[in-house]
């Protein structure tokens, strides 16, 4: 019972994702010109971006908490979230590039949505570089938290405003959240799409928790070694 009590959401997430993978590949999907069967990628590609945004929001939240209470654990949570976010960001880019290769004919096209994604990745890689160049623990945490908040707000404004200003994007979902607005998505796909989003977010949360425990253990080991 103890196991079920602590891990019911993990089991739930795994079941959802198994359903998404099976259903995403097997269920009926609309046959659109050019896109054809690759439309199934929506369950994976969009899920990656939703999880990334979710986890980056968490990073922002923990950075704010750190600047409020200066607890080292909050800083560690913020880094963990950024690293997890980078994993999902990379996966989102990769799934997107494969998709773009099949439908638009090249791995990368000059488009506000894609460039926004690239800028986001660059921002968080810069965040990691910043952490690497400061030695003192609390100074590192403080500077990183400040940069994270600063960068997140600008990044968010960028991906929200710029695509709307430019005359056109070939990436769908120009007026807001891709695939979420009701007219956008074929009703047959919704029964896999919404579980997919939930499943990937659960997976991101799980990954974050495991990663956080690993990083905390590693940090504790380092501190013990220093004290010897």
């Amino acid at each position: 019972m103890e196991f079920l009590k602590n891990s019911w959401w993990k089991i739930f997430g795994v079941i959802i994702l198994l359903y998404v993978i099976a259903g995403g590949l097997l269920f009926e999907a609309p046959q659109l010109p050019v896109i054809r069967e690759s439309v199934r990628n929506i369950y994976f590609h969009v899920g990656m971006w939703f999880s990334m945004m979710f986890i980056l929001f968490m990073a922002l939240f923990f950075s704010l908490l750190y600047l409020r209470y200066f607890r080292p654990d909050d800083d560690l949570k913020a880094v963990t979230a950024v690293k997890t976010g980078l994993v999902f960001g990379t996966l989102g880019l990769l799934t997107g590039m494969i998709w773009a290769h099949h439908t638009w004919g090249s791995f990368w096209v000059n488009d506000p949505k894609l460039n926004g994604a690239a800028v986001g990745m660059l921002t968080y890689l810069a965040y990691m570089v910043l952490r690497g160049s400061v030695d003192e623990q609390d100074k590192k945490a403080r500077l990183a938290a400040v940069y994270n908040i600063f960068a997140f707000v600008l990044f968010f404004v960028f991906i929200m405003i710029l695509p709307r200003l430019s005359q056109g994007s070939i990436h769908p979902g120009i007026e807001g959240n891709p695939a979420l607005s009701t007219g956008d998505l074929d009703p047959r796909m919704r029964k896999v799409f919404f579980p997919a989003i939930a499943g990937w977010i659960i997976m991101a949360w799980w990954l974050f928790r495991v990663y956080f425990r690993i990083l905390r253990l590693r940090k504790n080991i380092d501190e013990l070694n220093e004290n010897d």
Partner: protein
Amino acid sequence: MLSEIGHMIRKEITLEWREKFAFNGVLLYLVSTVFVCYLSFARLIDVPTWNSLFWIIMLFAAINAVLKSFLQERDGRLLYYYTLLRPQSIINAKIVYNAVLMAALGMAGLLVFVSFMGNPIQNMPLFMLNMLLGVAGFSSVLSMVSAIASKARNNFTLMAVLSFPLVLPLLLVLIRVSAAAIGGAGLMEEIPNLFVIVLLTGITLVLSNILFPYIWKE
């Protein structure tokens, strides 16, 4: 608050005047880059390239100019400010001062650039307005990043790496507006884009004022 900012700005200008070589250095950097571009491109350069080249050169010159704004402050002097001023006064003064510095740099840069690469600009007032707004935006982002980078090792690389993704949104809008200005678009057509520049600058200013105190306290 305002008088504190005023005093800080006056101090910055005095210092800059005493150490003219720093500003001259950036100016020379600007002229050299323009000259390198002039030599490496053919004389007849198409307008989009002209435009992007101008802004890329401006961006690098701006990063160079702002880089030293916090590095030159030694620890002792920072401690002295700490007893005198509110942190917000310091960051605001730096932002205003850097904006003025960059505006001067931008004007000089434009002059050099136009004389080497030719002048395709049809709507000069709009181009200037765009440049001045852009300079204010650059200054607010870069001053804050310079404050962060000055606390860490290998500053120049870090400054560039940290500021590129943050400046990029602004840079894209600036390039778009200045392309329109070169093409001879009227002021009214570009109001939405100019508004975005002002909005981005405003957001950056607010964030700088909230976040700077956390960087500053050791």
